């Protein structure tokens, strides 16, 4: 992590209030340096979310760019009390819905999930660890591709992005009870799919 990113992480991810205020100020000024750092910081999370939602790499790449353009253009609407990640995922999700409406297509239920399952190079895992993790990743990616998109979405937001239930409800624009029931059903289905794949 270079010095600029360290500064960003320290300065905007420490207390939430401070983070929100710093980002809101920068977005109001349309500060390109702040946007550069935000893009760096959220690149994997946003792209993974878009890819899981659309199931198509090209669409996810287009929407990745569009999301950041929307962040720039609508930056003044960002409220410093919100978490930037939640706001970002809401914008991304709305763009996915727009694309889906334009194409008269449902949220993806399968697609480029072979792009998933790669293991990030963190630490120095042994060859056996890498193989096992890669296999596990491929199995989960395949199971995710078979999950209904509404379940997949909440599972990703909850267990990959670590969003709180209330934040997920805000992103998917659904009541808390709906989010919970999707999570219960999604987890249950994922477990069954994985158990089925194992057998």
């Amino acid at each position, binding site marked *: 992590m270079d010095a600029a990113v360290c500064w960003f992480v320290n300065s905007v991810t420490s207390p939430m209030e401070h983070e929100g205020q710093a980002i809101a100020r920068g977005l109001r000024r*349309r*500060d*390109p340096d702040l*946007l*550069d750092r935000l*893009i*760096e910081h959220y*690149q*994997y999370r946003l*792209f*993974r979310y878009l*890819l899981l939602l659309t199931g198509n790499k090209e669409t996810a*790449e*287009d929407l*990745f*760019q569009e999301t*950041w*353009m929307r*962040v*720039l*253009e609508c930056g003044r609407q960002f409220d410093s009390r919100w978490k930037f990640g939640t706001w970002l995922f809401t914008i991304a999700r709305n763009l996915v819905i727009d694309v889906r409406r334009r194409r008269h297509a449902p949220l993806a239920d399968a697609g480029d999930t072979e*792009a*998933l*399952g*790669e*293991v*990030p190079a963190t630490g120095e895992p042994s060859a056996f660890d890498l193989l096992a*993790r890669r296999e*596990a*990743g491929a*199995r*989960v*990616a395949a*199971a*995710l591709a078979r999950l209904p998109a509404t379940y997949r979405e909440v*599972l*990703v937001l*909850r*267990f*990959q992005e670590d969003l709180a*239930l209330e934040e997920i409800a805000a992103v998917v624009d659904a009541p808390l009870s709906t989010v*919970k029931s999707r*999570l*219960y059903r999604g*987890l*249950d289905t*994922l*477990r069954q799919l*994985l*158990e089925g794949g194992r057998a």
Partner: protein
Amino acid sequence: MSDDVHPRAEHLITAARVEGISPAEREWLDAHLESCARCAERAAALERALASLRSLSIPLDPALVSATQLRVRLRAQGLQEQESRMRGLWVSCALSWFLGALSAPLLWRGFEWVGRRIALPDLAWQTAFLFWWLVPGAAVGAVFAWQRARGSSDNGHAATQSR
């Protein structure tokens, strides 16, 4: 062991990950998992699934990130330039309306005097005054509309170019 303890255990295994469970429920679940191999395996399977889900990553093309940063930077620059142009326009508008309001009584008398001198009907010089007064506002409105239209066509062009 009663039959309905297993569904309860399964529910609690999932609930613990979704919304959390109370300490009493946690205690009950832990005790049950110690004595029930089937439920313990279910809990372990769920844990493995979540661990795999968390470790799931993607290969992201660095070129996409740098292209996005460049595109956002160019657009930010464009928006800032557009805003500074609009700010200039707003200032000149405000000034023009202020001076227009100040000079209105004088102009009214001037139009009236000219109208009388050349024997125009009252309605004619009053209409001429109104027209004179409205023209700058209409011109500014037209400039704003033109700027806005140009701005949105620039946006569309930039979006197409950067793809």
